[in-house]
């Protein structure tokens, strides 16, 4: 009796260590009786063939109905304890290479307590050798009386805990070990009878499937959550598309970019093709071809229409869904900010270039102004003093004469300053090269482009691209043209009742019988009076309140240093035209 032990292998093949099964039954007929076991709850006592179908279905449904892992395990453990008459149960699931205790069920009176726990094998009380055996062989181990002699007698747990009935079932789904169910009863031997085991095996296989499904479901949920996170974080626009041009789903970020609401998406059903401006259709077609051959679209820049018809610059990349070929996901990054920054940078650079070119001239103008201003102020003051001396009675002629002498002296001094500056400008080393005035014009237009846009001015350029080249200093010529253009722009700032148009023209001209190039800057601004015409190129002539009146004077000096002419005339209608003529360079005469 003491040596009695049943050792069952999973296939149901019963082995006994000491005796043949028949012998056993004969020797210990009491074993055949299905004695009521002092189990915690009702048990299934029918043989597998006679199992109550309802019970099986109930068990099966209970287990298979759970898709949430925690609840599945709970149901599994309860059902197992309940129907097997076990006193304690463990669910062991592999995690990587090691086995971990996932749940432990214990009975206390009539209640079953299932605790979900994450523990290593070492932390939980159980016969490790049995577990290892089952993991290795994937066969069930049933010990009818563990206190008897059997292959696992050496196990520390069995020796110390005196467990009587022990059952360890592998949970297998599609030849894959999903986990282990370990049940024990310390009070009674022979608890896990074949019929109960049959139910348990059914339960185990059902549980294995459910566990696997649940795990897959959990993995899927996790992956889904990760993807959801990406979609819902709205860091980038994401939409699901198909090749018919539809947008099947889109996240808030994308909707925000194109300013559609979720309702619009449902009601208007705007397609990604509808949102694409005509000039980007070609690019999209290339992207579609790319997605068809490679399954993905490398990110490219394009534009989408917003709901209000404005455009948003974006970076788009896409990939088809596996196995679909027709549907896919696209990510969209809003490039508005970058574009704005780029534009701003561009403008800043142009402004910097413009300023640095202007400053040379302005600094020059300022220093000349200061140089000339002193004697000029003295002239005015002496003139006034002279008038005062003349108006005393009797007039103080001696004093008046002194004053006039000072006026002559200071007038000459002012004129000397200008002469010096002119000479300086003439002597300034001109870096002449053969150049095309159209290039100068285009560079200047690029520089003032921002200014024109900012002030809402219209620009019309009529450039003759068959012009001969001229020998000129590029930078100085640019300064002249820039000055003329800025003057034209400023002359139009106060105009509100008519179109404000800046016209720039380049054309062939005749300069004293020689081939020459003419550049005209025409505005529709305040224009020039007859008075203004005469003085416009004089130093200190300015119509602007803060104008130093040096710009045009310097411009003329520069053009004259190039053997050219700078002239101005009022337009027939409104505004004025400033133009300069430069002789064509020698090689173009031939």
């Amino acid at each position: 009796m003491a040596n009695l032990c049943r050792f069952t292998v999973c296939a149901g093949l019963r082995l006994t260590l000491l005796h043949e099964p028949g012998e056993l039954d004969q020797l210990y007929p009491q074993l055949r009786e299905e004695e009521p076991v002092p189990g915690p709850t009702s048990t299934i006592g029918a043989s597998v063939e006679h199992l109550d179908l309802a019970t099986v279905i109930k068990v099966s449904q209970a287990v298979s109905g759970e898709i949430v892992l925690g609840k599945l395990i709970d149901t599994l453990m309860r059902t197992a304890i309940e129907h097997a008459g076990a006193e304690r149960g463990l669910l062991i699931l592999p995690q990587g290479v090691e086995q971990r205790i996932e749940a432990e069920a214990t009975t206390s009176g009539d209640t079953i307590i299932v605790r979900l726990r994450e523990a290593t094998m070492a932390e939980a009380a159980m016969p490790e050798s049995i577990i290892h055996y089952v993991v290795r062989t994937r066969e069930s181990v049933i010990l009818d009386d563990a206190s008897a002699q059997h292959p696992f007698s050496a196990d520390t747990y069995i020796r110390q805990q005196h467990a009587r009935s022990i059952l360890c079932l592998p949970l297998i789904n599609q030849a894959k070990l999903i986990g282990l169910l370990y049940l024990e009863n310390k009070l009674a031997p022979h608890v896990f009878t074949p019929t109960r085991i049959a139910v348990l095996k059914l339960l185990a296989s059902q549980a294995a499937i459910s566990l696997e499904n649940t795990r897959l479901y959990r993995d899927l949920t996790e992956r889904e959550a990760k993807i959801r996170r990406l979609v819902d974080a709205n860091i980038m626009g994401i939409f699901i598309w198909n090749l018919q041009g539809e947008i099947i789903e889109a996240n808030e970020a994308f909707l925000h970019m194109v300013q559609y609401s979720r309702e619009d998406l449902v009601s208007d059903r705007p397609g990604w093709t509808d949102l694409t401006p005509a000039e980007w259709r070609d690019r999209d077609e290339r992207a579609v071809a790319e997605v068809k051959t490679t399954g993905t679209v490398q990110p490219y820049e394009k534009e989408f229409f917003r709901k209000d018809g404005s455009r948003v610059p974006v970076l788009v990349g896409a990939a088809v869904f596996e196995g679909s070929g027709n549907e896919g996901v696209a990510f969209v990054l809003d490039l508005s900010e970058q574009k704005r920054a780029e534009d701003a940078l561009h403008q800043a650079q142009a402004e910097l270039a413009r300023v640095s070119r202007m400053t040379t001239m302005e600094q020059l103008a300022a220093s000349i102004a200061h140089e000339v201003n002193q004697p000029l102020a003295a002239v005015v003051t002496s003139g006034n003093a002279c008038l005062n001396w003349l108006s005393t009675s009797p007039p103080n002629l001696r004093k008046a004469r002194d004053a006039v002498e000072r006026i002559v002296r200071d007038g000459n001094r002012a004129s000397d300053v200008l002469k010096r500056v002119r000479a300086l400008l003439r002597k300034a080393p001109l870096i002449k090269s053969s150049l095309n005035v159209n290039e100068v014009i285009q560079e200047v237009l690029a520089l003032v482009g921002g200014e024109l846009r900012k002030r809402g001015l219209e620009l019309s350029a009529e450039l003759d691209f068959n012009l001969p080249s001229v020998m000129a200093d590029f930078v100085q010529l640019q300064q002249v043209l820039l000055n003329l253009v800025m003057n034209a722009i400023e002359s139009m700032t106060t105009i509100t009742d008519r179109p404000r148009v800046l016209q720039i023209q380049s054309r062939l001209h005749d300069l004293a019988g020689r081939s020459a190039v003419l550049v005209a800057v025409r505005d529709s601004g305040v224009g020039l009076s007859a008075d203004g015409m005469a003085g416009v190129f004089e130093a200190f002539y300015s119509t602007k309140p803060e104008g130093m009146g040096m710009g045009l004077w310097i411009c003329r000096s520069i053009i004259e240093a190039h053997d050219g002419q700078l002239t101005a005339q009022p337009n027939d209608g409104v505004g004025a035209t400033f133009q300069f003529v430069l002789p064509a360079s020698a090689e173009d005469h031939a």
Partner: protein
Amino acid sequence: MKTGDPIVFVVDDDSSMREALTDLIASVGLLVEAFKFAREFLEHRRGDAPACLVLDVRLPGLSGLDLQRELVRTEAPIPIIFITGHGDIPMSVRAIKEGAVEFLAKPFRDQDLLDAIQHALEIDRAARQERSLVAEVRRRYESLTKREREVMRLVVSGLLNKQIAGELGSSEVTVKMHRGQVMRKMKVQSLVQLVRMAEKIGITGEAAPPTHEN
């Protein structure tokens, strides 16, 4: 140069401008004295006459604005008219804030300068008068005895003789006598005049010690 006649000082480093300014100012019959450097003007001892200064902003060494700051600190500040070849707004704002009378850009209209000069001389004349008046009042006040000063303080704070007597712990008759002395020494006929004088030298009734509460 007759002491007491108004005088215009000019500081400009540009000789043409300096000469022209000197001549223009002289042509309207004003006394004028010109300097090339700010330092020269500072070291010059001015007579006792209404004066103003026509000052170029940009000067070598001590600039016009620096000179202005130094003059503001002196006992007898002088009204300043700035002239500049290139006046920028912050500079003129600063100058005006520090009390400049006018800020003119060269070339300016002569009448603008001459008007500014007249205005500045007016300001200086008034300031001088005020200064001498204050000095005179102070002299008179200093001639009062300690007790008379106390009586004066209480009188200008609006107390009646009886109250003053109570305040000082003397008789009404004595107070009346002190009060008569104060009026005489301060050379005033009325209480109103006395109060005005007290204000000029910074004596107010407010500084009075707390009155007796009993």
